[in-house]
């Protein structure tokens, strides 16, 4: 499954026997199911994968270095382009980190708005997962249904933030503006539709026998391995470890809303899929509580024009749709950070892929890779 290679290369590459041991093939970087520009160098024995070496960095742009050259608050829009499926989570991550570094308090209403946006974002992100996972397994219609509902979420987010994908709507010290008029009702209306649509997805995909036979028992990640590799998010929760930053170290107002952390024990592709489906339901629960409890008040703390946090090291961690997203910043007291480090959940989750793939069949590669749900933008940074 190499990428189509250039003519001059082809003549040397071809006629390698498929049956022979240790055949090396390349998946990507342009391949329909690598979810971006990931390249996997597979060593095969027949259909069995002996060894897999992911090659990343095709989107590397040295963002962490670029951030060192800019004032703190100018770096927020760049985080949109990290995990572009969950731009708001990244916004929140870096803002929290800067707030901790500078000791900035966030008004309560802003915290509620943040949680609301975060959960809407989670739904949008998981819908992309659902859609692309469906296409990987051949259910093209699922992709279009998932994107159809995602558009509804995007409409909401667009109305609130003014952008479809790269929102930049969380600022140091709050959010830039209050929710628009009648936003709550619209969200509730969406929630109502979305509940029905989730049923439809179950009917179309989750219960489908073919789908289950493609996912159950495939790509099992044991709990110990998941821990030792530091995986997070749905990947670790599907391996039976109830690790969710929203519960383990609650931020914003996550300690005031009720929700369950879905956990599955099997650790296979199926479990990871189920965890994400369940998370969307939990997000709906959170959204409803937030809309019920949201207090009135200001949404932003005034900050000095030139923001100079004291020297020190701070880190923040939040639960992005893909797992534990953590920003770490070192300040030397100047307007620009000395060092920004982004602990991207996909980066860590992807590093477990080689050990997941060892011994599996090539045909299961797409299912396993799809179930990890990586975003290359944040892996390569």
């Amino acid at each position, binding site marked *: 499954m190499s990428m189509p290679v250039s003519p001059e290369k082809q003549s040397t590459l071809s006629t390698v026997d498929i049956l022979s041991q240790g055949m090396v093939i390349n998946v990507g970087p342009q391949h329909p199911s690598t979810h971006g520009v990931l390249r996997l160098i597979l060593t095969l024995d027949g259909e069995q994968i002996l060894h897999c070496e992911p090659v*990343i*960095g095709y989107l*590397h742009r*040295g963002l*962490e*270095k670029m951030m060192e050259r800019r004032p703190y608050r100018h770096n927020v829009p760049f985080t949109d382009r990290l995990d572009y499926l969950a731009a708001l989570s990244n916004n929140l991550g870096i803002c929290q980190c800067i707030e901790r570094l500078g000791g900035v308090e966030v008004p309560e209403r802003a915290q509620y708005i943040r949680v609301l946006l975060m959960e809407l974002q989670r739904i949008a992100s998981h819908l992309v997962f659902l859609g692309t996972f469906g296409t990987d397994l051949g259910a093209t219609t699922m992709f279009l249904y998932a994107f159809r509902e995602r558009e509804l979420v995007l409409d909401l987010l667009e109305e609130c933030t003014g952008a479809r994908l790269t929102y930049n709507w969380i600022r140091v010290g709050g959010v830039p503006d209050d929710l628009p008029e009648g936003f709550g009702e619209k969200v509730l209306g969406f929630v109502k539709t979305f509940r029905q649509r989730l049923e439809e997805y179950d009917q179309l995909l989750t219960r489908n026998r073919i789908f289950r036979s493609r996912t159950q028992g495939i790509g099992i990640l044991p709990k110990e*391995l998941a*821990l*030792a*590799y*530091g*995986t997070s998010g749905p990947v670790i929760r599907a391996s039976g*470890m109830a*690790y969710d930053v929203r519960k*383990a*170290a609650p931020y914003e107002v996550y300690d005031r809303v009720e929700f369950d952390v879905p956990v599955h024990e099997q650790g296979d592709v199926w479990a990871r899929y189920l965890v994400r489906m369940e998370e969307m339901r939990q997000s709906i629960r959170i959204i409803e509580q937030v809309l019920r409890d949201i207090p009135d008040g200001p949404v932003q703390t005034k900050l000095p024009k030139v923001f100079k946090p004291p020297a020190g*090291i701070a*880190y923040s*961690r939040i639960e992005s749709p893909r797992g*534990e997203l*953590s920003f*770490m910043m*070192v300040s030397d007291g100047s307007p620009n950070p*000395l*060092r920004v*480090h982004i*602990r991207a959940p996909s*980066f*860590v989750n*992807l*590093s*477990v892929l080689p*050990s997941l793939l060892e011994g599996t069949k090539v045909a299961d590669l797409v299912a396993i890779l799809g179930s990890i749900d990586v975003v290359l933008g944040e892996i*390569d*940074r």
Partner: protein
Amino acid sequence: MNEALQHLLKQLGEAVSEWTQVGANEVRLTVSPEHWREVVQFLHDDALWQMDYPADLTVWDTGTGFGVYLRLWSSVHNHNVIVLTSISREQPRIASLATLYPGLNWHEREMYDMYGVIFEGHPNLKRILLPDDWEGFPFRKDYVAEPSGDPLHGPQPVD
């Protein structure tokens, strides 16, 4: 947490040069680079700590040397530990933790890629994000890129 911290200080007092407790379940330790592996091994193995989750590892350029930052979490006790150390610019070497925590493998490779910090004992220390033939370590503060003039190869011009 307190009990565990006392235990740690008792066992490895000379290795930990500085420690602060932040909040109920977070502690920051500053250790000397020679004891890096030893301290982390202790945190990993000790029954009171059991730091089994490698959360994050990074390096930063302080101008005079490199700071190393390691964050661990314990799924058993819900402890958070941040271990800090600093290494010299001339000899950017430190013990690798990749065999202890396989999850740190890629982090260490990335830090080698960006800062040229050599993690001794790492099983596969080579470039991860940049092209294999890249010259220099671009995250160092003194790195100056010479644009190669070729869009398919080497550093690109900036404006």
